[in-house]
């Protein structure tokens, strides 16, 4: 029981090395807060903000702390909206660029653009509203007095013409009616005009908003395009050097739906403008050596860009013919790994099939004497390392096999008794220092049968030998 608890505590100690146990660094958190408070950053998806901070070396705890401290009204809504916009913009761009491969353009920094959008929109709406109000006021103030003066004029004309009053009485009435009709007509005219003005105003506003939207989409598209260009520059190493690197072709490559390459990640461009960019590869010779196949990589890429499918692709049904096909019974017990013993195996003599035979000058790995060698950049402490490692090369006590936390294991998977038995047996066997290399040979080279009957290996050996009997020479 004490053995088990020791193992648990040792494993717990060992496995805690895979967690970061440093305390939160306040200076890093404050830098992160400054970054997160930047207006440009606030409009970006949360995952991009996190990724940037991770690349700066902040731990998860530090990043979480910074997010907690930055007042962020509705990060989830923002991210949902912006990521959707981003996606739509990218998709729109896929079509756009396919039809018209965009030349490389220098784009003004996105910050100015975004600010331009907001300010301008607010300003424009304000101007519209003001002009609308102004027009309404103007109409009220000028048209109506005009109407009034006109009516008054008519009345005055009536009054200044008494001679015609005799038979003008009925005509006066008629005229009054006519005037009233005219007034109402004028009023309705005014109403109609003002209505039309309202309509045109709202139409103008709509048009303006549409324009702003289109501008916004354009901005997004250009942003993504510049992202893609920078991504491609960074990844120009990822493509064959034998073929020429045409910028236009590259920008087309990334957008094709059939394109295999991973989609562009826009996070780095906006916020990490100082990040290192890989230098473009040197221009390859104009006519590279002919590849052995008619279709080179670039040929296929340009085919796909044009929307053509390579003709050598077949329709293949690779679904399971019987989805309930049973897993086969294993015919061989799993083998222990050479590192399970805690130290590298001894050098074995080169006997046996050709794939086991080594170069007699086994110290020299490379066979080419004219190999260009470069000096790796060393850590200062590396010179002391070899001594420490030399000490470690000698036999060390075997590490206990990883102990399974039963609850966790149950939740995740069924424990395999077979593998556990193997490991325990092998671990027990390695206690015997003198017999390590012998046992290694027995376990790892199953082509040799039998052994000297060391008691602790009995179980594995019996298993192996029964397997051998069943499968005969197949293992070879």
């Amino acid at each position: 029981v004490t053995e088990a608890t020791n193992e648990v505590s040792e494993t717990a100690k060992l496995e805690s090395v895979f967690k970061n146990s440093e305390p939160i660094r306040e200076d890093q958190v404050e830098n992160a807060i400054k970054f997160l408070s930047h207006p440009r950053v606030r409009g970006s998806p949360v995952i991009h903000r996190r990724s940037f901070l991770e690349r700066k070396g902040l731990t998860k705890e530090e990043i979480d702390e910074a997010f907690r401290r930055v007042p962020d009204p509705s990060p989830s809504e923002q991210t949902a909206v912006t990521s959707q916009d981003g996606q739509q913009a990218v998709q729109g761009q896929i079509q756009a660029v396919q039809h018209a491969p965009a030349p490389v353009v220098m784009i003004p920094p996105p910050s100015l653009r975004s600010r331009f959008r907001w300010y301008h929109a607010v300003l424009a709406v304000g101007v519209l509203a003001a002009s609308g109000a102004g027009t309404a006021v103007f109409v009220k103030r000028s048209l109506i007095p005009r109407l009034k003066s006109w009516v008054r004029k008519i009345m005055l004309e009536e009054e200044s013409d008494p001679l015609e009053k005799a038979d003008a009485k009925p005509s006066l009435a008629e005229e009054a009616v006519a005037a009233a009709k005219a007034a109402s007509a004028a009023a309705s005219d005014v109403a109609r005009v003002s209505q039309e003005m309202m309509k045109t105003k709202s139409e103008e506003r709509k048009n303006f908003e549409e324009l702003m939207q289109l501008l916004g989409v354009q901005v997004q598209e250009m942003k993504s395009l510049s992202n893609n260009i920078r991504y491609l520059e960074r990844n120009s190493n990822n493509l064959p050097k034998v073929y020429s690197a045409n910028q236009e072709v590259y920008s087309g490559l990334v957008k094709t739906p059939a394109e295999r390459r991973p989609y562009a990640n826009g996070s780095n461009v906006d916020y990490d403008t100082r990040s290192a960019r890989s230098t473009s590869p040197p221009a390859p010779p104009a006519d590279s050596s002919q590849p052995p196949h008619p279709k080179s990589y670039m040929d296929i890429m340009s085919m796909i860009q044009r929307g053509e499918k390579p003709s050598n692709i077949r329709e293949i049904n690779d679904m399971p013919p019987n989805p309930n096909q049973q897993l086969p019974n294993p015919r061989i017990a799993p083998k222990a790994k050479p590192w399970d013993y805690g130290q590298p195996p001894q050098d074995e003599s080169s006997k046996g099939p050709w794939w086991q035979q080594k170069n007699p000058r086994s110290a020299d790995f490379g066979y080419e004497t004219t190999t260009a060698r470069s000096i790796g950049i060393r850590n200062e402490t590396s010179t002391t390392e070899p001594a420490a490692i030399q000490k470690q090369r000698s036999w060390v006590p075997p590490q206990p096999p990883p102990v399974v936390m039963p609850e966790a294991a149950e939740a995740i998977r069924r424990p395999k008794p077979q593998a556990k038995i193997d490991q325990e047996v092998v671990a027990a066997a390695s206690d015997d220092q003198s017999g390590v290399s012998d046992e290694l040979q027995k376990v790892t080279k199953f082509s040799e049968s039998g052994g000297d009957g060391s008691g602790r290996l009995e179980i594995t050996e019996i298993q192996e030998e029964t397997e051998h009997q069943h499968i005969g020479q197949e293992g070879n």
Partner: protein
Amino acid sequence: MPMFKAPFNGYSVKFSPFYESRLAVATAQNFGILGNGRIHVLELSPGGPGVTESIAFDTADAVYDVCWSESHDSVLIAAIGDGSVKIYDTALPPPSNPIRSFQEHAREVHSVDYNPTRRDSFVTASWDDTVKLWAMDRPASIRTFKEHAYCVYQAVWNPKHGDVFASASGDCTLRIWDVREPGSTMIIPAHDLEILSCDWNKYDDCVLATCSVDKTIKVWDVRSYRAPLAVLNGHGYAVRKVKFSPHRRNLIASCSYDMSVCLWDYMVEDALVGRYDHHTEFAVGIDMSVLVEGLMASTGWDELVYVWQQGMDPRAS
């Protein structure tokens, strides 16, 4: 040392943990851009240097990675470009395969790694920014780890601690996870550019290596992770895969877009200890045999698979 010529571009190669002479190769048509895929199971001929194919499985989409089960000797698991994870039984003929297909990842699955200590689970890494934990006999993933901000290129189990794995991502971070914890337990901003691969030191469970588009390999100790133990320069272009030797404590193998496979000893001043230039296109897959010390394999976009002993010429017949 023999080579095998595949019809498609090579992406990954893995030795079987059960059979010394067996290995699996993941390949993809049209460089993996668009097209079918194929998994080859190869046997090293015992009589003399030679590699032959024993069985192959066709897939509708590219196969980016393959790994052998550590519990069932005939089973292998494939990471497919259409986001599916497929399980194959090499003891059954191709028409009876695959025996399982899991469609959960939203994008290409780029790597698959089987747990070497517990032997009952595996992790997949995908361009959908997530890592998933699976067991062969479960119809759905057990857990999804969603923290990376970009494609995850590889997830690798710790060789000693069955609950711990590391993930390498295009968001330039290396993350350490414990399946018993809700999120990652460590975040290491290992490189300034995308990290394409990582692997644990088999003899020091706190040490791991990463390699990146920035052409370097860095070796880290999780106990003092702010600065790397070593930075290995020498590759001319992005380093695609990195692998710690199962037999020698400080030996690292790597392959790169500069078409070479290199061997490094990171504890030594002049770290580059070997270099092989047998590939004529991107070298994208390497493995070192757990059963046979010194045996290595590599594959690349030149559609070739090489198997050789360290110290020998991969191309010598």
